[in-house]
């Protein structure tokens, strides 16, 4: 496996009133925080990597492979959104089961894997529950369990903790870090909170007005004072 997880070369996405360009290289095995003001293009960056948005030009490589024309499900990527990660009318085990087979053909070994994954995220015995009966944190953990059974080497998390209270955020951060150590995967996580960033990440991608303006190791990023948008984000005045 290549030691580079994601490469974006001259990627350009055009919207009606904005043009976004992305160039970056993400090392395999890192946890990378993606930060920037709302509307700076964080979600679009994820959509390009995950295959929800086709760039007008440029090359997207994930683990060395060119992604152009590959549908979202066939990329080595799992994605977790801020909300609506679960099909609300299907129970927890079924929702996790989609991570093993999109047509829900599950053998008994698969059911065991589902149970183990749920146990791993601290939701043993929740298999028959429906998503609306769970708390926001529990629903996000189910989504993590599905990512676990799906086993994709790149995990994209789009503000996964945004709807959670501070105590739960800390718990989820720890769980995520543990899973990262066990799975040895690469994680990109969009966050608005400097605390998530400093406690979780190895490096930081910072976006401003549709461009990646900084990509530094955590220590270097926290010391930067040269970009106004970063100062605003970190609260340095």
């Amino acid at each position, binding site marked *: 496996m290549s030691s580079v997880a994601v490469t974006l070369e001259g990627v350009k996405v055009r919207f009606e009133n904005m043009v976004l360009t992305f160039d970056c290289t993400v090392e395999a095995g890192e946890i990378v925080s993606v930060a920037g003001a709302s509307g700076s293009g964080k979600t679009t960056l994820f*959509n390009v990597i*995950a*295959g*929800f*948005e*086709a760039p*007008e030009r440029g090359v997207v490589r994930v683990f060395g492979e060119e992604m152009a*024309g590959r*549908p*979202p*499900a*066939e990329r080595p*990527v*799992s*994605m977790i*959104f801020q*909300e*609506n*990660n*679960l*099909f*609300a*009318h*299907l129970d927890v085990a*079924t929702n996790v089961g*989609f*991570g093993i087979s*999109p*047509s*829900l053909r599950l053998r008994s070994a698969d059911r065991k894997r589902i149970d183990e994954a749920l146990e791993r995220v601290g939701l043993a015995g929740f298999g028959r529950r429906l*998503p*609306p*009966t*769970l*708390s*926001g*944190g529990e*629903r996000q953990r189910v989504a993590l369990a599905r990512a676990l059974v*799906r086993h994709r080497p790149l995990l994209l998390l789009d503000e996964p903790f945004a*709807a959670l209270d501070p105590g739960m955020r800390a718990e989820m951060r720890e769980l995520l870090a543990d899973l990262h150590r066990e799975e040895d995967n690469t994680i990109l996580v969009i966050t608005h909170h400097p605390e998530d960033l400093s406690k979780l990440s190895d490096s930081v991608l910072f976006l401003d007005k549709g461009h990646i303006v900084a990509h530094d190791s955590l220590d270097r990023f926290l010391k930067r004072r040269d970009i106004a948008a970063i100062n605003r984000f970190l609260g340095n005045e």
Partner: protein
Amino acid sequence: MIARENRLTIAAGGFSLGGILLFVGLAAAAMLAQGGGDGLFDAYLWRVTRFTLLQASLSTGLSILFAIPVARALARQATFPGRVWMLRLMALPLGVPALVAALGLIEVWGRQGDLNRLLAATGLAEPISIYGLFGILLAHVFFNMPLAARLMLAGLERIPAEYWRTSANLGMGSLAIFRFIEWPAIRGLLPGIAGLVFMLCATSFTLVLTLGGGPAASTIEVAIYQALRFDFDPPRAIALAGLQIVLTGTLLLMLKFVAPPPEEGETSGKAVQRFDGRSRLSRLADRIWLVLALFFVGMPFVAIVTSGMQADLSRLVRESAFHQALATSALVALPSAMISVTIAALMIRTQRLLLAPMIPARRRHRMPARLFAGAIGASTSLVLLAPPVVLGAGWFLLLRPFGDVARFAPFVVIAINALMALPFVHRVLAPAMASHAARTERLAASLGIGGFHRLRWIDWPPLRKPLFMALSFALALSLGDLGAIALFGSQDLATLPWLLYSRMGSYRTADAAGLALILGTICLILTILGTAGEQRSPEGPRT
């Protein structure tokens, strides 16, 4: 695999769109081909047009004038017992077929009705006749006053609660509150409400047919029907149909640019705390308006039920004519409702696929995709431009050269009814499908769930309810329709409304009353099933 599936869906959506355009286009082509000459815009046409506009204007004005105090009374008296039932009563007229309501109105306001009996008792010599302009206005106000009042009430209930506290704090009187708070809220809604009501009244067919009484009080649509079924004067029918399309087209354009569509919003008895309307005088005034509205809207329903019960129902339901009509109605309404729902669902999904950013190809031919999506959006309201009677007239003329029109009649009626229901089905389905897609489409795509599995696990369970609601609503519309069947109906193709109309025409009033009760009940239940759905929160309460 998923790309192929998307292409299939888009193809099916395009096929549906093509079908609609072809159906409407052929009707239009038939009329153009046999087109009327120049000298057709004679005095008769002019008179019919003038009457159409006159009755629609008067109906709209009266409905709104009546609706304002009723809406205000309902908004101001937010807690009286039975308020919920009053609101439900106000929703009732839209649930019964126009023909059934017309019968109820005749029972109350007709020559033998309660009103004239009352007038006779007070010694008035000349009874009031319901047939003519008076009856048309009555029926239109019966249908549209409650609609307007509900839309206004929704507007009044959207006023922020702070306004009422502030006005109470400032000591504003009832008049000042109306002038500075209530009237501005209502005034903003008036163009939309008036436009909607005017449109409904200008294209009203059944009510004018049953209550109009002769050429003096005939609208364009009824004149088309008479030109085809009685005078057999195709050129005149064509001229009238052209006139109708110009008229509705102008109205639709005006509505689009002048008046935003009114929003229904919540009217389900949500109690807003208000501090005005507590004085004895305002309570009395509100009570008077509410009682008036209660009797005006409620009495025809009471009449339908009581005279329907007096009919020999047990004999009626054993009659073979009734069985045949019921079967015919089912055979027409079921396919047309299913076609309507299928087409609407396919087209909504196609529109979403075309506009969604998930197809890389989109960026290459963006313009055609947008045009296609726009055409789909417009097609669902195409039938508003060409009302059922106009469409029917076109097909009547198109099929005549191929022999007996009756042979094709069922198919044409099914198609017209399906088209007629399309805007309403679209309104039920589109928001449900949009929020479902927003919740699931990226997730399903990222997990690779497609085809049959997607339908079975992801789409069907949450969309089952809105689909059935739309189906139920479409069934009610098709079952109660007299527009298309009036042109194509015969002994061999007699639906329930057709049977009811012919019983009314042959003065078998007891039978008619019984049939009206049965038809009204069926349609009302279907409408309630079709509109009662509440949107649930997708993932439960946000924590």
